[in-house]
């Protein structure tokens, strides 16, 4: 939906002369966020242990004059972006390369700067990345995404952001970030994190599969009969009104009553606590976007095209396979994208009903009030969702074909 509504803007030719003002606003807002983190907030904080609040250190004190170099580099990259926007692809990619180098440098510098701060402190002391560090990082990533979009090269934004994540991961792996609290948290729970990530992916993929298994027959029935469509839309919208947390939680007693009534189901591996309530609950939420995009996708084919195909003697089955599905593909993939992204997010709540996944780490962090543990669980969820979103977006674009590109 987002894409359709937001890219369906009416273009107003002849206003290009004034457009630069707001273009400048859209580009300068993230850059200003970076500078805010550099000069107006605490970059890192030093705490006596992983749970107590720490004492803030601004970027200039923590990183030294390199902060000015970073700020100058950012301004240079933006200026370069303005100059090179009409040049060849290599020239257009130059400012993004500069920004990627800048982001990687900041990550490594922060790790290096943290080491001397720990000298002479008790072993439990922690150096945490504070508001300024996160603000600058977020602003820098937004700037990279924005500038990559300006190049007009579709793969530029995901590749550039993926590179930054890869470089940060490599820096963490090779020990540059060891002094940071988050890195310590990762090292202490490396096995757990890996297992949680695999569990999260398996759970959200399973829920998406279950949701699809329900949505395909429902969507087909709704496509054939308006009465079924009205009924399923009321029911599925009703599910959306029940809070996700409540639905998952309520499935625990519901499943245990069902299991008490039909003990044979235990033999199939069904249990009231664990993956079962998470899978069922998340799948119930996914049903609405999946069914509605399926119905809309099947309806997308023009009535005249359908008539022509019927006149040629096509059977209903062939009509669906060779006309409706190919023509509705963009909407079908868009529905799958919404479903997959929602599945990854909603699976977080599985941590509440014993299903594991990254949500379990988030909730453990909340219970301990340990910020870095919360981030350890939350960051992979967001990265996973963004990666799946951009992957399926690319797939959708491929299927739509190059001729319909704006």
């Amino acid at each position, binding site marked *: 939906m987002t894409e359709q*509504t937001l890219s369906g803007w*009416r273009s107003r030719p002849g206003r290009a002369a004034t457009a630069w003002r707001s273009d400048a606003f859209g580009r300068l807002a993230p850059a200003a966020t970076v500078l805010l983190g550099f000069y107006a907030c605490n970059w890192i904080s030093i705490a006596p242990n992983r749970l107590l609040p720490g004492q803030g250190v601004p970027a200039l004190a923590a990183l030294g004059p390199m902060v000015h170099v970073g700020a100058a580099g950012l301004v240079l990259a933006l200026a370069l972006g303005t100059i090179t926007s009409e040049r060849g692809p290599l020239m257009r990619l130059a400012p993004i390369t500069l920004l990627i180098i800048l982001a990687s440098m900041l990550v490594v510098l922060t790790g290096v700067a943290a080491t001397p701060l720990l000298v002479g402190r008790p072993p439990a002391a922690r150096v945490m990345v504070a508001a300024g560090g996160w603000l600058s990082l977020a602003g820098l990533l937004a700037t990279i995404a924005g500038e990559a979009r300006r190049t007009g090269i579709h793969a530029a934004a995901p590749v550039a952001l993926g590179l930054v994540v890869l470089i940060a991961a490599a820096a963490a792996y090779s020990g540059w970030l060891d002094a940071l609290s988050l890195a310590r948290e990762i090292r202490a729970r490396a096995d757990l994190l890996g297992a949680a990530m695999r569990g999260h992916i398996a759970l959200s993929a399973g829920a998406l599969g279950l949701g699809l298994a329900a949505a395909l027959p429902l969507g087909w029935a709704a496509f054939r009969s308006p009465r079924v469509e009205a009924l399923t839309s009321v029911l599925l919208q009703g599910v959306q009104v029940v809070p996700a947390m409540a639905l998952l939680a309520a499935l625990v007693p519901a499943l245990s009553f069902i299991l008490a009534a039909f003990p044979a189901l235990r033999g199939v591996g069904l249990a009231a606590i664990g993956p079962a309530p998470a899978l069922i609950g998340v799948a119930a939420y996914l049903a609405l976007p999946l069914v509605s995009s399926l119905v809309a996708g099947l309806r997308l084919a023009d009535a005249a095209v359908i008539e022509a195909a019927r006149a040629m003697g096509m059977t209903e089955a062939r009509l669906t396979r060779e006309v409706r599905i190919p023509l509705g593909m963009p909407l079908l993939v868009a529905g799958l994208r919404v479903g997959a992204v929602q599945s990854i997010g909603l699976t977080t709540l599985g941590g509440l009903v014993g299903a594991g996944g990254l949500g379990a780490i988030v909730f453990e962090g909340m219970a301990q009030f340990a910020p870095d543990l919360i981030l350890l669980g939350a960051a992979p969820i967001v990265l996973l969702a963004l990666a799946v979103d951009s992957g399926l977006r690319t797939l959708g674009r491929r299927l739509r074909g190059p001729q319909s590109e704006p």
Partner: protein
Amino acid sequence: MGAAATGLVFAGLAEFHVATRLWSAAGWGVKVALPDDRLLALGAEHLALSMGSLAAAALAAVSLGVLVTRPWAGRDLRGAIDTLGTISQAVPPVVVVAVTLPVFGFGPGPTMIALFAYGLLPILRGTVAAIESVPSEARDAAEALGFTSAQTLWRVELPLAAPLIAASLRIALVLVIATASVGALAGAATLGTPIVAGLQNQNEIELLQGAAATAALAFLADGAALALLGLLERPSPA
């Protein structure tokens, strides 16, 4: 009407005596249900928290929506909002609550941020679509009459876009109320509080009461919003 009736049914299910009777009638053992006055107090806090966050989100989203539909708004600003939409889909409310918890501490803070972020996008999308749907003839006529661009906005575009903006506010209202329960994980007093307590103490009746009461509140709010929209639409001359 349907929404309000469904809401009343759910409210009835959540009520202390009804819930207790149903529970014992089903033969599921003895559990202590949440008393009505506590449920009502939590419901009031739930509603206040949701409405406060929704009002802030509506103010921000409508202003942003007006901003990006101005003729001088460039493509990059729209691109930025596209990016915002992708990110807000990828970061579910429970993650926002979790990540902002260390900053704001236990209480309503993290929940308000999460609800603000969650309500922002549907209203922004609705506002943009509503203003885009204003026929260009109306704008041209206003220009011909000598309206300034501010006058065109206030006296032509916004009145014509109002019904669609109001519809998106209604969708956001239901979303925000259904989502506010998650705040209980970060110590906000909402109808999610009995859900979390029920999960921790294995008190299923409390859990189901919280779930039914949240659904009741969402349906009742939807019914109220529908009634309000109907009232607003009637007196306006076509």
